């Protein structure tokens, strides 16, 4: 059965008419039209579809779009600071944490949530925080380095401020 839902994605409200059974990832990618969020397994195993809902990381393949009504959804397209790359995005590139890039949007969303909740995570906490995101290319070392560098830089900025 179809219903109309207001989805608020990256600060913009999108009224979408969808079947109630539709998962969030398909609605974001199709009706909302933001394809940065990827679908890799439809099974909550790979994390490519990770988005933030009210700041918390969620596998959007296994979340009904209608459940996201009246919540703040953030996708990878909402991460940049205006026209500037977010430090995490910049560090992923500089450290070499991006190869094919298919896991990258989900990885960025999980890391964003992790750093918001825990600005100075230990290595073990980063590993746990990102363990729901599969990457087949990098072996994770450079992703780990990018997240740790982002946390360190952020702490240095805070200390200077």
């Amino acid at each position, binding site marked *: 059965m179809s219903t109309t839902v207001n989805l608020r994605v990256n600060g913009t409200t999108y009224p979408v008419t969808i079947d109630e059974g539709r998962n969030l990832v398909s609605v974001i990618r199709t009706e909302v039209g933001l394809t940065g969020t990827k679908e890799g*397994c439809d099974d909550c195993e790979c994390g490519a579809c990770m988005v933030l809902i009210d700041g918390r990381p969620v596998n959007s393949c296994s979340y009904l779009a209608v459940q996201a009504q009246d919540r703040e959804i953030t996708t990878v397209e909402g991460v940049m600071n205006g026209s500037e790359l977010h430090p995490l995005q910049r560090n992923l590139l500089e450290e070499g944490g991006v190869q094919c890039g298919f896991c990258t949007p989900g990885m960025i969303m999980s890391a964003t949530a992790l750093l918001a909740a825990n600005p100075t995570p230990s290595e073990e906490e980063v*590993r746990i925080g990102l363990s729901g995101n599969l990457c087949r290319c990098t072996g994770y070392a450079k992703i780990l380095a990018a997240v740790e560098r982002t946390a360190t830089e952020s702490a240095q900025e805070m200390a200077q401020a």
Partner: protein
Amino acid sequence: MTTTTTPRRFVRADGPDKVTGSGRYTADLTMTGQLAAKFRYADVAHARITRLDVSAARAMPGVMAVLTNDDVPDVRFGPFIQDRTLFARDVVRFEGEVLAAVAALTPAIAQAACDAIIFEYEPLPVVGDIEAALAADSPLVHDDWSAYGAADVLVRDRNDASFASITKGDVEAGFAEADHIVTSRYVADGCHAAPIEPRAVVAQWEGDKVTIWTSTQVPFDARAGVCETLELPSNRVRIIVPHLGGGFGGKCGFHYEAHIAALARATKRPVRLVFSRREEFIAPDRRREGMVFEITSGVRNDGTITARKAWVAVDNGAYTADSGFFSQLVAMHIAGPYAIANVHVDAHLVYTNHQPSGSVRAPTAPGACWAVESHTDELARAVGMDSVDFRHLNALDTGRVGPSGQTHDEIGLQQCIAKAAEMIGWNDDRPADEAVGLAIGWWPSFAAPSGAYVKIDGDGAGQIITGAQECGTGAVMTLRQLAADELGMQPEDFQLIYQDTSAAPYDMGATGSQTLFNNGRAVVEAATEIGRQLRNLAAQRLEANVDDIVLADGAAHVAGTPALSVPIAELAAEAAGGELLIAHGSGVPPSAPALEGSSCVGDLGMAAWVAPQFSCHAVRIRLDRDTGVVRVLDVAAAHDSGTILNEVGAHGQVEGGILMGVGQALTEGTVYGADARQRNAALLEYKLQTIADSPKVTTHFVQIPTPNAGPKGAKGLAEAPNVPTAAAISNALASLLGSPVRQLPMSAERVWEAMQS
């Protein structure tokens, strides 16, 4: 000797697209009027089709086309053996075989139509065991095998699709010289490339021309497949690859582009196919092959291996994809990078009713390396020698002769062994539940034709238009540096135009670790031609001898008179009004080295290796003796891949290859039922390694001048790091258990069982 080239750190050109979500992958594309495609699969491993009725599916509202074998040209295809068709014909031979393809208004309607297709069949005996399949009385996977077209050099017999042997010296005489004879049997389960992006294809016709956007690693191969099966000339088929979400060989070959093009032609609408994860597991002809190994080696008390004899059976699956050369390739890997005087290997590529095998990252090598390197440690234990010393004694070195009779030019294998052992702390004390292990591997560089264009437009901005394909490795990104170095410009001065068969000349694709090796050569040649043009223009402008013109820092200078110079952008503006700065390059691939004192049956050119790459991985592991769970703590990787041009990218290849190797060692293996169907075709049951599992990796590159290497002395690197990791883990584990775990993956269950016996 170490070269002085300092690898540059640079950010990959496609990186900003990928971190912002603006980069488009195939499944992100939507065409106006686009239909959704779904396939109906056999879902049975071996059966004769008695009824395939699509009439109800065709009649469903919203269904625009249903195609079967009756609706496409009568073509059998395959690069080595023409043993397959686009759609099942008479007999299905594996569960993922496509019976029919549907295009409908929505994916849900297309799926409902697939479900409405009536498929009735008579079951046929299932061939699931590769050793039994070689028996004279085994049921045949292909009754008509002898009637198929095939490469002349293939040695075929019933279920044996490709037999190869390598013989050097006299193994029986070598065994007679030995003090110990060790025989080992190992079994490697098949596994998967498992790129995170499931494949997707979009096809759209305009008039009699079709454009196909597809997640392939090999666009020119994909085009050739479409042309062959739909009987089209190559200039009416354009393959464009958007960003590719990983491949690891799994997206090599020709997959489904023709099915979707045929649906788009039948419906006169664009059609899009997007695979589910389950389809990604069961359907493509690109599973990593399962294998059985029997290896016997003779060794003297002083540690010298006197002879090696081996028998290998490789699971080909139901159809022969690019696997025809696997038998000879696995023979090289099971002989190993050793200077053994007497070698004989027999290798069979065996049809079964499993999913077809194909080139997954270093095909046959990780499994064969795991077997032969586990066996090598058994030999070292038999003579009471340290694993490192034993390898230094027997492994290849500059000037030594390999198993196929190739005398090796300058190579860095011995340095790799020493460095990996040093980095892991080979002789350090460690707790009783920890151990180190080490293994060596090798991999050829594949010399192949490859082309590129380079142009510089009137504003001085450059473009490299290349047939090369990017699958994440960053190899294409390094091409900018090669062109820039040739022309005294910066990599950022060039944009890359790639992954489009109608824009660029041929390249083999993101396969065989060959992009930099071959396409780098093409780009350098094209850039050299542009450089010649620029020097001529500058010589006229500066009234100097052309031989004195040097291109550096974005300008043409007169050597010895730096004040006399002209910016390249000015020369480009001048050329824009005249001859234009455009050039093409391909270069001449290096030829294969000579082999002496050996003979090969079923020779597909895989025994003579141009610019071979060598590696040694050493690992430190911890074993939980209560559960059999192995944790890999550290990996020290030493690689001779020639000159390293892209430091960040090179480390990324090694780290990624190692983690894939850890997965293959411990958790990744396809489980088949007695019905030859996969039992773990999902990421919940087929476990990839996570960031929480990943070991600390330390990498060292042994950079020595290699004859016949690629640009600036570079060899390949994408596949080599996947070769020796599982073997090193096996040897560490064997040192804790006293003997190796003889089946791959060495899952916790199998480790625990080995501990009980």
